[in-house]
């Protein structure tokens, strides 16, 4: 690589030599910029200074409140959702990363997130907000993929699986370096991933293989399914060791879904191939156990609805808008409307359980393992992204529509 770096630099040097003399440009351009802006300057600066003060204050307040709230031993945030969640800011001299470690049994489900001050640090909080703390001091900068319980997580760099004390416990197959094509199984131990022969697959694609890994076990190939290409790929959207199946989706270059397969984990047998059913897919998500498969805008329903299938391919129902995620038991779904609205509904009867505060948009959702609760992460346009991941608010929504704002302005890891 060093040779290539030198060659690239030399090539760029040769190209840039054509540019010629650049002396004097800096002053000329700066003077022109100042002159161009002269008539508006006083007004712009007043606005800018005021806005900057607000932004700086807001950033400081947001961070401070989170740190304070996460440092409490009691619930992190217990406010019910409102159109504009309010804060009681208390200025802090200097924000610091969360220092105390997370003290809960290793089996207690938690949500993982990037520390609001140090993005590389991974923090965790219980679903009821009663405990929070640092999980690992480093390893979060390039992203991580926790299992549903937050007891293990896959790190992007190094293909490692870590436990909640930040210790490396296994490595998943790193045959494909394109990113997280993996998916945690519903037992929280196994990690399903599609890999292909080349780290950078050819334009025309090459076959992909579904692999299953777990701490203490040898990674094994389950089946050859889907293909990986330069501008397209395939991935796992559900993996259920408990129900012995995985859902694999083939994506087009634009990210839309083209085809899906249901694969039996124990035998590698393809239980269902959507192409053989003549179904045209568009945007697929599945419940954790693969019992329900949702496809938005596909051939089996109106363009603005989501069709919900069984793993055998039969249509079970429809949901308005785009289904983004299922609750753990599959009864509730998070849906987004064409106007950007976010709701939780019971898809069997279409009853709206919860509507997100107006103006917040969907980022991601996480089902609470073993319950009907869902964590819904929402983006707020008032929050400026300063790190690698957008800051979001997290609401925990129950089947009765009760919602708690658990986290505010954090970069979640799900």
């Amino acid at each position, binding site marked *: 690589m060093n040779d290539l770096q030198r060659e690239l630099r030399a*090539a760029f040097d040769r190209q840039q030599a054509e540019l010629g003399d650049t002396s004097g440009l800096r002053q000329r351009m700066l003077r022109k910029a100042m002159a*161009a802006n002269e008539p508006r300057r006083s007004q712009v600066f007043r606005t800018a200074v005021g806005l900057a003060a607000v932004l700086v204050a807001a950033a400081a307040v947001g961070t401070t409140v989170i740190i304070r709230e996460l440092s409490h031993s009691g619930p992190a945030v217990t406010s019910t959702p409102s159109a504009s969640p309010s804060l009681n800011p208390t200025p802090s001299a200097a924000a610091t990363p969360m220092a105390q470690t997370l003290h809960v049994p290793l089996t207690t489900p938690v949500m993982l997130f990037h520390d609001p001050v140090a993005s590389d640090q991974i923090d965790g909080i219980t679903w009821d907000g009663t405990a929070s703390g640092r999980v690992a001091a480093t390893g979060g900068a390039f992203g991580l993929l926790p299992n549903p319980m937050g007891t293990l997580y896959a790190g992007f760099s190094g293909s490692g699986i870590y436990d909640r004390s930040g210790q490396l416990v296994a490595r998943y197959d790193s045959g494909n370096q394109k990113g997280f094509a993996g998916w945690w199984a519903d037992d929280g131990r196994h990690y399903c991933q599609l890999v292909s022969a080349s780290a950078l697959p050819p334009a025309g694609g090459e076959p992909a293989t579904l692999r299953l890994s777990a701490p203490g076990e040898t990674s094994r190939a389950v089946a050859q399914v889907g293909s990986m290409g330069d501008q397209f790929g395939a991935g796992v959207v559900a993996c259920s060791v408990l129900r012995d199946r995985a859902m694999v989706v083939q994506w087009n270059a634009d990210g839309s879904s083209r085809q899906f397969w249901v694969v039996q984990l124990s035998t590698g047998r393809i239980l269902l191939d959507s192409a053989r059913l003549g179904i045209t897919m568009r945007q697929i998500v599945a419940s954790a156990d693969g019992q329900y498969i949702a496809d938005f805008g596909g051939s089996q329903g109106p363009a603005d609805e989501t069709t919900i299938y069984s793993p055998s391919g039969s249509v079970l129902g429809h949901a308005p808008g785009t289904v983004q995620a299922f609750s753990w038991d599959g009864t509730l779904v998070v849906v987004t409307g064409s106007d950007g609205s976010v709701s939780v509904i019971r898809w069997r009867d279409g009853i709206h359980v919860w509507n997100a505060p107006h103006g917040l948009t969907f980022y991601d959702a996480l089902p609470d393992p073993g319950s009907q609760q869902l964590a819904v992460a929402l983006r707020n346009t008032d929050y400026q992204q300063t790190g690698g991941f957008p800051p979001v608010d997290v609401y925990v929504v129950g089947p009765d529509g009760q919602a708690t704002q658990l986290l505010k302005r954090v970069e979640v890891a799900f």
Partner: protein
Amino acid sequence: MVSNTEGSLRDRAMAGDEAAFEALAGPLIEPGLRLAYSMLGDRSEAEDATQEAVIRAWRKLHQLRPGTPVRAWFFAIVANQCRNVRRTRWFRLTRIEPGQYPARPSEPDVEHLDLERGLARLPEHDRQALFMHFYLDLPIEEVAAALGLSPAAAKARIYRACHRLRPDLVQEDAP
């Protein structure tokens, strides 16, 4: 990561201190011009794009997110400006194939030619990432910020581009 000095300069520049803006943006103008030239292949167009970027930076400094390095932000403005130029009908009618470099006055050796042909064949966004990382020496995080990508995506893009140029690179050599 934004240094205290940069943060202080930015605050002063936002308050109307021209000297602070000069100290902040001045050193970025030439590399910005080089980035524009690498994208447009024409000095005059590159100067115009860079000039517009400087004006925008001066006007929009208050929109810079706290914590975002000014350098990455400025290069993002330059790159956007260049993309706008490339989209114009005039540019498309008068330019050679997008991404193709200007004719060379003297013939380079075959190896150089191969690499330059390889560079010319790369998608524009891949070439930008390589230019920022290997020529302007931007760290991955700043390349990511300038291109509106996650650091992981920027890293993958650079690696992918390198691999296209030299398919025999081994995986462990990724940047």
